[in-house]
C-alpha cells in the first residue's frame, strides 16, 4: 500500500464544506470543491485534535510518534526517534517529501527531511532565506506585509519580513505562487514514479499559513476591497485584535479573513490536480490518502488573531482529518476521539512497516476499516511550557501553569525554548541523563520560565458552546474535577515528567489535590 500524506498548514476545519456549511467568522461561503469531493470518498474524522503545538511539534508527532509537549518545545528530530521516512526506506519503500515549509530548514528543527529518498523544497514562503534582491522591495507590498520600524529593509536581522517581499517580488501568474507549485509538483511526482513498487509521499503545504498573499482571482473572491491597498495587511501579527502590535480595525480584520479564505480556495483548486492524477493514473486502489492540518488559525475568534498567545480553543486544536483507504468500511464519518500522533502508527500500518514499541501513537486503521468504533477516552494537547489542555470530545479543560513556575526542557540539543528560530544558545546549566520514559538515551535537561496563554482555569462545553464563548469552570465543579482527573490520567499514561505536576498546581504538599 502506498501512502500519500497531505498536510495543509493552518487549515481551519470550519472553512471546509465537509465540516461546516459556512465558516464561523464570515458571512459567506468558501469554495472548497475538491476537498469536499475528497471528503465524499474518504472517512471523515469529526473529533480529531492536535497534540503538540504548533507547526514543528505537530510534525514530530506525525512523523515520529512522539507526543512531545510535556517534555520539549519546538525542536529537531532526536537521535532516538524513528521517523516514518527512515523506517519506510529501510523496508524498501520509496520516500518523497514535497514542501514549501521553510521551518524544516531553520535553526532548531533539523532532521525532518533528511530521511527521504527525495525531497523537493519550493523556495520562498514566509521567512525563507532565499532572494536577497531587490534591496528595496515595492513599498506598497511591504506596507501589507510588515512594520517598517521592526523590519527595516536594510536590516540583516533574523526573521525580517522583507525576505517574503523579495521572494515574491515578480510573481505574476497564479502558477508562480506556492500552493500551485507544491500541488502541481506532487501531481507530477505521482505520475513520474509509477514504476516503483511502493512509495510514501509526504506533501506539506505551508499555505494556508500566513502571509495570506494570494493572486487574483482569489484576492478579490471574498472582498470588495482593493487587495493591493497598502492599508490592508496580509500578514497580521499574532495577538489581540483590540490592542498592541496585533490590533486590527474591523475593516482590516475583514480583509485578513477574506485573504485567508482566498488562500483556502487556491489550495483547494490546486489540490484538485492531485485528485485528478490519482483518478487518471488509477492509484486509488493501491494508495491510502490522508489530508489533515497541524492546527487552525484565529481570525478574530474570541478576540484573537493567529495562534500561540491565547487559550488553545477548538479553532486551533480541533483539526480536520480525512483518510481514504481502499479497504475502508464505507467512508462516512468517524466520531471517535483521535489525535495527531495517531497518524504515525496509521501510516506505518498501512505500509505494513513494523511499528516501534512504546510510541504514543495508536493506529486509526481499525476505525477506518470499521472494526472498531472507539479509540481514546481523552486527548491531551498544548504547547510546551504553558497550559495543558484536555478534551473528552464534549468538554475542553485548560489548566494554566502556576505563577513563576518553570518547565523543564529535555533534548539532545540546546534549544532556545522561547525563541525557536534563532541560533541555539550554548548553556552552562543543564543536567544530563536518561530522563525520558520512552528511550534509554541521555538528554540535556534545563529549566525555562513557564508562560501564560491564560491565567485562570477554564472549562468549555464544546457540545453546546462550540465557539467557546463561556468559561463554565465555576459553574460546573464536578465536570472540572472529572476533566482534571482525565488530564492527570493522561499525564500518568505518558509517564510525563514529575515536575509537570507541581508546575500545573496538581500537587499540594506533595500529594495530588
Amino acid at each position, binding site marked *: 500500500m502506498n501512502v500519500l500524506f497531505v498536510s495543509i498548514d493552518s487549515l481551519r476545519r470550519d472553512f471546509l464544506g465537509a465540516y461546516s456549511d459556512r465558516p464561523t467568522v464570515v458571512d459567506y461561503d468558501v469554495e472548497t470543491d475538491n476537498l469536499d469531493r475528497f471528503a465524499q470518498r474518504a472517512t471523515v474524522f469529526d473529533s480529531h485534535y492536535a497534540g503538540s503545538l504548533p507547526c514543528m511539534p505537530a510534525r514530530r508527532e506525525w512523523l515520529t510518534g512522539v507526543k512531545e509537549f510535556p517534555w520539549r518545545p519546538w525542536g529537531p528530530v532526536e537521535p532516538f526517534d524513528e521517523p516514518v521516512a527512515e523506517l519506510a526506506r529501510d523496508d524498501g519503500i520509496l520516500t518523497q517529501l514535497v514542501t514549501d515549509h521553510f521551518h524544516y530548514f531553520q535553526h532548531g528543527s533539523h532532521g525532518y527531511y533528511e530521511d527521504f529518498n527525495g525531497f523537493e523544497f519550493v523556495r520562498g514562503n514566509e521567512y525563507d532565506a532565499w532572494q536577497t534582491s531587490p534591496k528595496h522591495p515595492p513599498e506598497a507590498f511591504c506596507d501589507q506585509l510588515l512594520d517598517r520600524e521592526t523590519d527595516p529593509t536594510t536590516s540583516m536581522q*533574523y*526573521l525580517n519580513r522583507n525576505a517574503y517581499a523579495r521572494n515574491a517580488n515578480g510573481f505574476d501568474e497564479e502558477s508562480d505562487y506556492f500552493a500551485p507549485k507544491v500541488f502541481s509538483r506532487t501531481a507530477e511526482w505521482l505520475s513520474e514514479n509509477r514504476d516503483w513498487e511502493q512509495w510514501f509521499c509526504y506533501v506539506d503545504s505551508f499555505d494556508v499559513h500566513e502571509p495570506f498573499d494570494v493572486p487574483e482571482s482569489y484576492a478579490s473572491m471574498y472582498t470588495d476591497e482593493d487587495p493591493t491597498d497598502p492599508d490592508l495587511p496580509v500578514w497580521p*501579527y499574532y495577538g489581540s485584535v483590540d*490592542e498592541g*502590535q496585533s490590533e486590527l480595525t474591523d475593516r482590516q480584520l475583514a480583509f485578513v479573513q477574506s485573504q485567508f479564505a482566498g488562500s483556502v480556495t487556491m489550495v483547494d483548486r490546486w489540490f484538485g490536480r492531485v485528485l485528478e492524477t490519482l483518478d487518471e493514473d488509477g492509484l486509488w486502489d493501491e494508495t491510502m490518502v490522508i489530508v489533515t492540518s497541524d492546527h487552525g488559525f484565529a481570525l478574530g475568534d474570541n478576540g484573537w488573531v493567529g495562534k500561540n498567545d491565547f487559550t488553545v480553543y477548538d479553532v486551533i486544536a480541533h483539526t480536520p482529518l480525512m483518510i481514504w483507504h481502499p479497504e475502508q468500511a464505507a467512508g462516512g464519518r468517524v466520531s471517535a476521539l483521535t489525535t495527531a500522533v495517531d497518524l504515525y502508527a496509521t501510516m506505518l500500518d498501512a505500509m505494513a512497516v513494523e511499528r516501534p514499541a512504546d510510541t504514543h501513537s495508536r493506529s486509526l486503521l481499525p476505525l477506518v476499516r470499521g472494526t472498531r468504533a472507539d479509540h481514546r477516552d481523552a486527548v491531551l494537547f498544548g504547547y510546551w511550557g504553558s497550559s495543558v489542555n484536555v478534551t473528552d470530545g464534549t468538554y475542553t479543560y485548560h489548566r494554566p501553569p502556576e505563577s513563576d513556575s518553570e518547565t523543564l526542557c529535555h533534548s539532545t540539543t540546546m534549544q532556545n525554548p522561547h525563541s525557536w528560530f*534563532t541560533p541555539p544558545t550554548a548553556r552552562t546549566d543543564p543536567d544530563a541523563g536518561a530522563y525520558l520514559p520512552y528511550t534509554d538515551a541521555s538528554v540535556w535537561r534545563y529549566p525555562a520560565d513557564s*508562560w501564560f496563554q491564560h491565567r485562570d482555569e477554564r472549562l468549555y462545553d464544546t457540545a453546546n458552546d462550540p465557539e467557546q464563548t463561556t468559561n463554565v469552570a465555576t459553574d460546573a465543579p464536578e465536570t472540572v474535577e472529572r476533566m482534571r482527573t482525565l488530564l492527570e490520567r493522561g499525564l500518568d499514561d505518558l509517564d510525563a515528567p514529575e515536575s509537570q505536576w507541581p508546575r500545573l498546581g496538581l500537587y499540594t504538599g506533595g500529594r495530588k489535590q
Partner: protein
Amino acid sequence: MPLTVEYCLSSCETDLASTVDTDGVALRERRCLEQCGICRNRAFVLVDGRLVVEPELTSTLESLADVETGGDR
C-alpha cells in the same frame, strides 16, 4: 484607553517591564512577539505597537510608570 506595553520572555527582563504594571498601562507578557531578530540582539518592548529599544527603553518605562504614579514611586 490605557497604553499597551508588550514584551516577551526573551526581549526584556520581567522586573524592568513590571515597573509599568500599573492601572494605566496594559502590560502584556508574551512568549514571543515575532521579533526574534531584534530580540536576539537587544532588549525591547512594544508600546502600542511601537518599537522601543535601549537606550530609550529604561527611561521610557520609567516615565510611563511616573505618569501613572504622579512621580511618587
